[in-house]
């Protein structure tokens, strides 16, 4: 897991774990334990409520998420900022497009 995502940074779109960081809106989606396409679906639901330029960080454990989250971002015009895979954990951060 990347160093900037710990248990305290966890949240989900339902928890409303959003804050105004220096980089603008940053929201975490916790999709751990969910099978694809659920992580991508959660990410898309969260993205719908956010303005362009916001950062969205998605945590997942399904191996397909490491491919599908970047593919979703590409199809939707979002930019992948980073994609980390460590053990079973996948953390994908995207900057939302317009």
């Amino acid at each position, binding site marked *: 897991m990347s160093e900037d995502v710990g248990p305290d940074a966890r949240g989900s779109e339902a928890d409303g774990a959003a804050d105004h960081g220096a980089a603008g809106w940053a929201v975490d989606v916790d999709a751990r334990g969910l*099978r*694809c396409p659920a992580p*991508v679906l959660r990410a898309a639901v969260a993205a719908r409520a956010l303005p362009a330029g916001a950062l969205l960080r998605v945590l997942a454990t399904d*191996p397909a998420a*490491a*491919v599908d989250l970047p*593919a*979703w971002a590409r199809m939707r015009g979002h930019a992948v900022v980073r994609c980390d895979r460590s053990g079973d954990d996948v953390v994908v951060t995207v900057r939302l497009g317009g």
Partner: protein
Amino acid sequence: MRAGRAAALLWRRGVSTVTHGWWPVGAHYRAGVPASASPSRAVLDVAGHAPLRPAARTALLEAFDQGWADPRRLYAEARRARLLLDGAREAVAAVVGARTEEVDLLPTHTAALHAGVRSVARGRRRHGADVVVGAVERAAVHAAASFVAQRGDGVVARVPADRHGKVDADALAAAAGPRTVLAALQHANGEVGTLQPVAAAHDALRRLGVPLLVDAGASLGHVEVGPAWDVLAADAGDWGGPPLGVLVTRAGVRRSPDWPEDEDRWSPGGVAVPLALAAAVALQDAVAGRAAADVHRRALVEEVRVRVAAEVPDVEVVGDPDARLPHVVTFSCLYVDGEALVTRLDREGLGVGSGSACTSGALEPSHVLAAMGVLTHGNVRLALPVDVRAEDVRRLCDVLPRVVADVRAAAGATGL
């Protein structure tokens, strides 16, 4: 009733039914599979398991009468079986441009790929144990490469594919070193249809003295495979023969078996002569009808590519749009569960494949889609049979927007 019919059939052939307690009474009904001849059903995913061609079926039945004997023995019936077996190898050799003695037949395509990788790695072991493979090769190639590399303290270099699934020929050659015993690049990818640059790869590797194994499992019988290979593997089940593996090794390629000695050195135990004959007849039939089948299926694949992209929202049609097999087409639908999609289409009477993880029972999705960086969920894969009916392909295109919308709605994926 089933048992009664079976008994009648067996009686007519003068066989006692007393010992036939194993007959699976009513198995067909329990499985709940509609008859394949039903006009409302169409299987659009026949990769590796195409329906048996009528010519192959005839040959198979005749060969069971003419070629049942053990081709290793010396009496007349056995020599006839040997003639049929050698005839089958000769026919395959003629199609791929090889000599009869270069053709080996194995029980399955997987066995052929394993034997090809293992025997060449063994034969060239004084060079090392490194293997170079394209990232989108079949699982059997990846597994065999890992097997021989691990055994000889070598490494497997997996050369990436681009967004279309194409592996760069120069990158493949650049990954080969002095300890490389073999490189593998498929003729075309059977999951997404993309043709690979095998001619360029073969040229570059030949300069390095590294033999190239070309997996033509998705190509042979469908397109001209060409001469750019040192070892060639193919799958009779894919071109409408019975399931049977083909392995062709050019005479100049050093190889050695890493399995126990057998009279059939390269295919221990050999294969059933009737299967070999039917596979060869099916290949000749496929090649004879190849041009017409190409025109027919290429037009339908193009129709699928255009209509799916235009009529299904949030879909990605994958694979090279031009340099491709005539009968394979794949696309992925965002927010859709692949298993739900396959099940719904099956209920509509349409058999399709999928590379999504949830459809295989495995946790990992298709390594081909993953290597391409395209969506792995909501995937639908078609490998059209030669005699596919245009109306069945159009029916798929017609129902797909509604089916995808239904599956999305059930998952709450609306307005995204």
